[in-house]
């Protein structure tokens, strides 16, 4: 077992109730101007509406945040070296170095880097490194109503996140981009017949 920790998240769509507590928790914790984690409706056109016809309907939610890619395109393109990939996983954006050139926003395949119109700098989820460095979980994880967000060490095979990935069907967003995100998703379980 590797002693170096490699943090990641597993997001269980089966347990996500679309409440957006993660979005607000993140905004409060990081004092952000825009949401760094957004909950996408998978269903009808408008937010919170289902797909299908009445009685035969589906509705799921997909929280989206920085994917903390193993091969992060944003880090490669940042001319100011404001974006760094840490050894323990998180891709961290240093606001003191950011020049607001938006190159990272264009490079990111996930559209999860936002622009702060007040400071004219880029912002994104840093996986609450200020918390995980103290042994705490990201704030969105502890505020998740459905307990759909799981955080832990992907290098530790006994961790909850490793176990979930071992035992459940899972996926990453846009695998074709070769970014190998540390944010993994568990899809909703198929509906059982009565």
């Amino acid at each position: 077992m590797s002693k170096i920790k490699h943090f990641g998240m597993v997001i269980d769509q089966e347990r996500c109730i679309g409440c957006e507590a993660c979005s607000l928790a993140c905004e409060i914790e990081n004092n952000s101007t825009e949401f760094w984690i957004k909950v996408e409706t998978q269903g009808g056109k408008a937010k919170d509406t289902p797909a299908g016809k009445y009685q035969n309907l589906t509705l799921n939610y997909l929280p989206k945040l920085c994917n903390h890619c193993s091969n992060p395109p944003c880090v490669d393109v940042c001319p100011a070296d404001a974006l760094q990939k840490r050894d323990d996983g998180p891709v961290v954006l240093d606001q003191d170095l950011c020049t607001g050139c938006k190159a990272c926003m264009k490079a990111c395949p996930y559209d999860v880097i936002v622009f702060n119109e007040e400071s004219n700098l880029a912002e994104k989820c840093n996986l609450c490194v200020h918390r995980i460095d103290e042994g705490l979980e990201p704030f969105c994880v502890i505020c998740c109503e459905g307990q759909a967000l799981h955080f832990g060490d992907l290098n530790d095979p006994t961790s909850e996140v490793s176990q979930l990935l071992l035992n459940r069907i899972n996926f990453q967003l846009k695998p074709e981009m070769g970014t190998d995100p540390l944010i993994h998703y568990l899809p909703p379980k198929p509906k059982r017949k009565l």
Partner: protein
Amino acid sequence: MEEKSEIRTIRTACPQHCGIDCCGILAHVKGDRVIKLEPADFPDERDRRICLRGLSSLDITYHPDRLKYPMKRVGARGEGKFERISWDEAYDEIVKNFEKIAKEHGWRAIGWVLGGPGAGTTKFGAYLRIASLTQSTRVSAWGYGDAGLPCGSRIIIGHHFPYIHLFGEFWQRKWPEMLIIWGANPAEAMPLQTMRKVLDAKESGTYVVVIDPRFTVTASKADQFFGVKPGTDSALALGLMNVIFNFKLYNKDFVLEHTNGAYLVRTDTEMLLRGKDVGEKKPDAYIIWHDPSNTHKALRRKNVMEACLTGTYVINGIECKPVFQLLMDLASEYTPEKTSEITGVKKKNIIRLAEKIGTTKNVKFFTYMGFTRTYHGDISLRGLISVASITGHVTTSFSSGYMPPILNWKPFLKVIPDKPSFHRLGILSLYNAVIKGKPFPIKAAWFAFINFLNQCVDSNKIIKEFYPKLDFIVQTELFMTPSAKFADILLPVCSFLEFSDFCHHPYPYVQLQQKVINPLYESKSDATIISELADKLGFGDYFKGGEEALIDLIMDHHSLDNVSREILKKGASKLKSIPDGSNYRLGFGTPSGKIELYAEQLIEYGEALPVYLPPIEAPITPGDKKYPLTFIQGHSRFRTHSSFANVKSLLDMNPEPFVEINPIDAMARRIFDDDYVTVFNDRGKTTLKARISESVGPGVVNINEGWWIDQFKEGSVNHLTHDIINPVQEKVYEPNMHMNDVAVQIKRWEDSER
């Protein structure tokens, strides 16, 4: 970075009116300011939680629009013009007006209209205490949507709530094989205490069914969703029973032991056959038909399991049938075909669901208040419990787990034992008390933790007929709500971080809502306000020690002798546990001590059995009607009723009201997404955006309740609702407001009206 040492943490609890969720909160305080709220620890770490609304609470505490000092109205009622006064001036004004009204009409004419205290207890208790001491009138707010369920529950099981019997074990994490969530949306209304457990249960294998008019977030998580037409639930219950009876899937032993199914009913008078009718020694004894001896006998504990559930018998020339037979006869009319026609649930699903309920060992039913917000909502609940009873899925005892909490309410309900206490009036009965002086006149009203005009039925009636008849109005509030604008004296109250209270939620815990910071501005807690007012009224002795003393008083019950305030300052405390393997009987509070499938006191209303009676207004059958759409009000995750409606961070996510309408109904009216539309009926109208959605079926429209009147382009949800009283509910408990039993029409908001 802030210095860690400057920051201290205090454990408190969020007492919002989601009530039973009552999240434990760890408040981070720097100096005299709360800088952050986070979920606090619980003895069981799985219970650590906070919700979207709770997270936004600092936006309430530090909201720029907080009411900051007592005020006196200077403009017309509703105009919102006030001038600042001192607390002493406010109390003097109140005492002067109360004494004047009491002199003319008696103290009974002063009503304390108490809304939802949430998980708080003493803020509510303080009002009961002053009402009791002054022998004025307590206006109960159960009737604003929450009286239908207690009515049904009181009739069939004899308790105010059916929860412990229906899903108490579920709340204790004993997962059933199947969970039926009927007419409730815990994903948005009770995300933590209930929905999180629904997800846990499902993960462990529980099969989840949701029955609801709307495809809610909860429904999206279920294995099966059955869309039911609003107000037809008791027909669905009878349809399920029809199949259960036909396939003989009922639990005979359970029915014999725990229900009045075997009791004989006279076919002539419809009354239960009694000992006096057949010459038994005990004149009031219930009579059964005894199978082994093939004769009638007075019911005894010994012979209860030997009674017949079916058949027709003639005793002393009196024709009789067991209750169970009458229920079978009634259900026989509700074939799957007919039930499907009434309810909209597909025939095959009715049959399959009934089979599964009848053949699954452990089924739990979850429902809540919204289920019973139709005219006959009390019967809907009786139908649900009847289905659960005939199949043996009602919990009658705990073999392990936790005792239900009991609080020391006596010194609040009746302060001086040998003196009369307060008068009681249901909130829907308050309309007539104010407008017509019946059953007695109410001339002054004190509104506390209630946004009356916003949340109660028929806004136009309230504005035009109700408020003008009141001589004096006091309101305690955090904000200038639509209701607050009608107050004569407006008193600023604290947010929950600024005072202490005792919370007996979430089951199986009790918690302290611990004061975190001093009250902001000149605000005070309700308990403090009442304590100070009591002093002016000459009852100061009963409120010595203020809110802290009231907390000690309400906790003074032996069921809580394992907890102290010192323990609660550190965290939540578990209720007393029931020893493993014991048989803690939950019991039924009905006259017979059983589940009453047949309610003798309702014979005169034709409701002795859980009959299906159509909604009073909802136009559930298609046809050429003036108001062809059924209007219902769902709950939103962004609000707890009308609380949080003015919080900016939540408005950023959900900026304005909308009406959900099915594409078929929208297309017929040339309505497109985000168009402004007017929803109307003879009572009023409201204009808001349309959201075209399959989440409601054709013929049904939904607006989530709780938006403030000012947030609509015009009107509000309650400009459409009615104040019709159901006499059964009035007799059994108190009449409910039927927010989900309303007919409306919708049209595009035309340019000419702009």
